[in-house]
C-alpha cells in the first residue's frame, strides 16, 4: 500500500495529470523568488569594495553552478531508477535533465568568463573549479550524444543511464584530482570570494536566488518531461483525447 505512489509515478498518464496541478504553484514560486532575488541582488545589495558592481553576476553564476552539479545527480538517479525498475517516466526525466543540466553548466561557465574579465583581467583561467565545471560540461555532452546515437529509445535510455552512473562515480574523483592538479601547478594568485567571507547583506539575496533557481529547475524539468511524455505516448488514447479536446 505504502508504495502505491511509487508505482503510480511510473505511469506517464498519472505523472502528466498530477503535475498539471503543481505547475501553477511552481511557476508562481519561481517568478516571485527570482524577481525578488534579482531586484534585491542587483539594486539593493551593497556594492563590493574591490569588484564594484561587477560582482553582481554572482546572483546568476552561483545558482547556475549549484544546479548544474545537482542536476547531474538528478539525471543519474532518475536514470538508475529507470534502469532498475524499468520505469518509463524516470527515463524521460533523465532525458530532460541531461539537456537542462548541460545548458545550466554552460550558463555558469559563460557567466564565470564574463565575471572573470573585469575581475581577473582575462576571460579564462585554468582554475580548479572552472576546469572541473568544463569536464562536467563534457560529461553532460557525452550523455546527450549517446542518447541521440541510438535508434531505439529503450536502448538509448539504458545506455545513457549507465554512462550517467559511471560519471557519478567519477565526479568526486575528477573534482579531487583537478583540485590537486591546480594546487600543484598554479600559484594561488587568484582568490575567490569565499563563502565565509561574503557579507550577509549580499548573502541573503543569493540564497533567495538559489532557491528560485531550484524552483525554476523543477518547473522546467517537469515541463520538458511532460512534453517528452506527450511525444512518446502520442499514439495512446488519452493523449489523442487531450489533443482533440
Amino acid at each position, binding site marked *: 500500500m505504502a508504495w502505491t505512489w511509487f508505482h503510480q509515478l511510473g505511469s506517464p498518464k498519472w505523472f502528466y495529470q498530477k503535475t498539471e496541478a503543481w505547475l501553477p504553484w511552481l511557476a508562481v514560486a519561481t517568478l516571485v523568488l527570482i524577481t525578488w532575488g534579482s531586484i534585491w541582488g542587483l539594486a539593493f545589495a551593497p556594492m563590493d569594495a574591490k569588484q564594484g558592481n561587477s560582482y553582481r553576476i554572482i546572483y546568476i553564476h552561483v545558482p547556475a553552478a549549484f544546479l548544474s552539479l545537482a542536476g547531474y545527480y538528478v539525471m543519474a538517479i532518475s536514470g538508475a531508477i529507470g534502469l532498475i525498475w524499468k520505469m518509463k517516466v524516470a527515463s524521460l526525466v533523465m532525458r530532460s535533465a541531461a539537456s537542462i543540466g548541460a545548458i545550466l553548466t554552460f550558463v555558469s561557465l559563460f557567466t564565470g568568463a564574463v565575471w572573470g574579465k573585469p575581475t581577473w583581467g582575462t576571460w579564462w583561467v585554468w582554475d580548479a573549479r572552472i576546469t572541473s565545471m568544463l*569536464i562536467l560540461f*563534457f*560529461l553532460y*555532452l*557525452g*550523455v546527450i*550524444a*549517446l542518447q541521440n*546515437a*541510438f535508434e*531505439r529509445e*529503450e*536502448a*538509448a535510455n*539504458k*545506455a545513457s543511464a*549507465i*554512462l550517467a*552512473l*559511471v*560519471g557519478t*562515480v*567519477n565526479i568526486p*574523483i*575528477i573534482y*579531487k*584530482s*583537478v583540485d*590537486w*592538479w591546480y594546487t*600543484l601547478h598554479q600559484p594561488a594568485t587568484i582568490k575567490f570570494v569565499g563563502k565565509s567571507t561574503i557579507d550577509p547583506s549580499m548573502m541573503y539575496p543569493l540564497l533567495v536566488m538559489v532557491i528560485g533557481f531550484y524552483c525554476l529547475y523543477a518547473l522546467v524539468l517537469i515541463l520538458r518531461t511532460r512534453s517528452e511524455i506527450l511525444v512518446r505516448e502520442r499514439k495512446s488514447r488519452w493523449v489523442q483525447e487531450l489533443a482533440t479536446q
Partner: protein
Amino acid sequence: MSDRENASAPALLGLFGATLRRDLLLAYRSRGELFNPLIFFLIVITMVPLGITPDPVQLARLAPGMIWVVALLATLLSLDSLFRSDFDDGTLEQYLITPQPLYLLVLAKVLVHWLVTGVPLTLLAPLLGVMLSLPASGFSPLILSLLVGTATLSLVGAIGAALTVGLRRGGLLLSLIIMPLYAPVLIFGASAVASAADAMPYVSQLAVLGAMLAVAIVSAPFAAAGALRVSANG
C-alpha cells in the same frame, strides 16, 4: 550443492583462461593491427617538435604531458575494436548466455587489450622520452605510471566500447564519452613524470594511480557487462 560450488571454481578459471588464450591468439594472428597504435604514438610525438619547437629545454618541459596525452589517445583509438568483432559475428550473444559471470569475460578481454596495447605503449615510451629530451630521472616513473595507468585506461574505456559497440559509427562517440573520465589518470600520470623530472618525489602519484586501478578492476567490468547487455539487445 557444495559439489556444484566446488565444480564452479575451475570452470570460472577455465573460462577466463580460454578467453584470454583465444583473444591473445586472435591478436597474434592480426599482428599488423597491433602496431597501429604504436605507429600513431610515434607519429604524433614526432609532430610535437615540428609544431612547437625543437628546443630541448622546452621539449623537456612538455615531454611528460605530451607522452601521456598521446598514450591516452592511442589507447582510445584501439578501444573501438575491443568488442566489435565479437558483436559482428554473434560471439557476444554466446557470451551473454554463458552461465559464468560476464564480469570475468570482460576482465579477460580487457586484460588482453592492455597486454597488446598498454604494455607495448609503455615499452615504446622511453624511446619517445629520449626524442623529447626527457630528463634521465623521468624515465622510471614514465614506465611505471604508464604501466599502471594504461590498465586503468583500458578498463574504463571498455565501458565506452561496450556502450558504443552496437552503433555503426561509434568510434568518435567513444572518444567523446570516455575522454572526460580519463582526466584523473592523465593528471596523476603526467604529474608523476613531471615531478620526477624536477627531482621531486613521485611515489604518491603512483600510489593514487594504483588506487584508481584497484577501483577500476572491481567496478568497471560490471558497468561494461551491463552496457554489453544493452548493446546486444538494442
